[in-house]
């Protein structure tokens, strides 16, 4: 059976990437190309800012994420000592925001790591070995659009809600797309001359895949990782918002939003900042990912299809 649910853009089978060139030589120009476009510069700066905030967050935050100040609840933004105001318990919104961004990024990185670690080998296998492809691709087709929330609900029902379970559900949900991308790249690379040459020298499949195919799929994997990242960040916020992810008092942008909904009429600004933060993180990775894709593969730069 054919892949009926194949995503339409021909990215995975794009033959414009100059596959015969050794991977490392090609990568040298990437950074220069990335930073030569305005989109690339904006994306890189934004991602750097988000990562900085996530790494340095606890040290940048003026207050602890759970430090309450019952004398000053619902402070407006630009209050002295509380640049973005306080919530219902007098907790500093800026501090909670910084910790929340950190939590988002932790879940995002865990989810991406899981998708890469499990998706890459399966994708290589499916792209290289036909019998495996039949099984792997059918399973991917089925799992591709399965609602991750159902997965998260199942996990929560069995082991309880936590950051780890949220990351697990989001990681598992994104394995199929990673398999897709790596499989497509592998199928394309199989036909490349240098891989055919390696096959002709009687190299084993592990050697061929590890030494010749994998290094050339890395650009596609990195780009896919930038696609998964915002999906995972929104997913974490969504799960925590519903009470299925990170549990209070641990900070999360989703929890801040669900708290803010309780007193949205009294302090509307509390609902604004966490959402803006999520949007900024996602914009950063979406812009960066698009620019990175164009930098890796100049032939798509004009079409800029997703």
């Amino acid at each position, binding site marked *: *059976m*054919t*892949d*009926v*649910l*194949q*995503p*339409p*853009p021909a990215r995975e*089978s794009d033959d414009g990437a100059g596959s015969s060139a050794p991977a490392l030589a090609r990568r040298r120009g990437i950074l220069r190309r990335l930073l030569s476009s305005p989109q690339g510069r904006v994306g890189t700066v934004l991602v750097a800012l988000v990562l900085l905030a996530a790494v340095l967050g606890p040290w940048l935050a003026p207050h602890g994420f759970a430090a309450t100040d019952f004398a000053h609840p619902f402070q407006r933004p630009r209050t002295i000592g509380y640049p973005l105001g306080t919530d219902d318990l007098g907790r500093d919104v800026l501090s909670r925001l910084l910790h929340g961004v950190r939590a988002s990024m932790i879940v995002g990185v865990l989810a991406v790591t899981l998708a890469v670690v499990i998706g890459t080998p399966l994708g290589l296998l499916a792209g290289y070995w036909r019998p495996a492809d039949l099984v792997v691709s*059918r399973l991917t087709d*089925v799992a*591709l*659009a*399965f*609602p*991750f*929330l*159902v997965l998260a*609900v*199942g996990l*929560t*029902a*069995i082991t309880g809600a936590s950051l780890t379970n949220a990351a697990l559900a989001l990681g598992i*949900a994104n394995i199929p797309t990673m398999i897709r991308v790596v499989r*497509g790249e592998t*199928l394309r690379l199989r036909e490349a001359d240098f891989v055919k040459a390696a096959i002709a020298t009687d190299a084993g499949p592990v050697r061929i895949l590890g030494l010749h195919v994998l290094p050339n799929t890395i650009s596609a994997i990195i780009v896919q990782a930038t696609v998964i990242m*915002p999906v995972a960040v*929104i*997913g974490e*916020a*969504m799960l925590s*918002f*519903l*009470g*299925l992810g990170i549990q209070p008092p641990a900070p999360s942008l989703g929890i801040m*939003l669900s708290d*803010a*909904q309780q007193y*949205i*009429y009294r302090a*509307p600004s509390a*609902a*604004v900042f*966490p*959402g803006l933060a*999520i*949007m900024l993180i*996602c*914009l950063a990775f*979406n*812009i960066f990912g698009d620019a990175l894709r164009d930098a890796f593969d100049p032939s798509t730069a004009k*079409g*800029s*299809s*997703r």
Partner: protein
Amino acid sequence: MIRFLLVRLAEAATTLLIAAVLIFLGVRALPGDPALAMAGEEASPEQVAAVRAELGLDEPLIVQFGRFVQSVATGDLGTSTRTGQPVTQMIATTLPVTLWLSGLAIVVAVVIGLALGVLAERRRGRPAELGANLFALIGLSVPNFWLGLLAILVLAVGLGWFPASGYVDILEHPLAGLHHLALPAVILGTGLAAVITRQTRASMIETMATDYVRTARATGIGKARILLRYGLRNSLIVLVTIVGLQLGGLISGAVVTERIFALPGLGRLTLDAVFSRDYPVIQAVVLVITLGYVLINILVDVLYSVINPQIRTGGAAS
């Protein structure tokens, strides 16, 4: 076509069976002994054993599974431990809400997405394209539940144009029902609209650059006809694919949207069940969503093969 359909149905049945096994085992992997819970903390071991026998929990797993499949097949999904109602009935009252919400969201997304996608292609390099691209980028980056909160704040509370929450049966009171569902549906549809905008634009650009479109232009066929006949036809294939692929995201989004707008749908039923550990309901909801997911996927495949005959013959194998 019939062979194609049979293969698909067989696959769907397999998927459902796998899902049923996973759900069955998942529920049994849960911590806690249901027999102990039902008999109560003070029950003697004999009483617990009696309850266990009554529930059929002392029989081999395979027998239990057979009984589980049998009761599901006859529409008996058990009784909610939270409300005592039959689960089938609870799902029957909540499912229509979710279906209306998701259906309307898809309509909103398709209309906005197609319009902006075509507009972006027609006005390449002009502000209109930039606007469409910006919409797509932001639509992909905005968490829809946040958008929902802002919409409630501004459009419902601030301006009073829409009700902030609640549900009216759309079949009984079409106007009031639509009024209540409009805001949630638009919010839920935004993300999908962004994806459709992007893909439609890309597919239109690709199609318009093909040789056959150039030939059609050279023979003097009008712009509008080319757009409809070639551009949109190809976009339609893309559209069906996207809706199929985004289905999971849509269902997940519907759960959150229902929560924000206080809609009494499947999402709320699910969340209530998770927080009160109402396992019969959790089990049933997961089964129903899987069933719906499988059915819609078959529908997508059939639509796909109708629009693009290459799929049936395997001519488009990758």
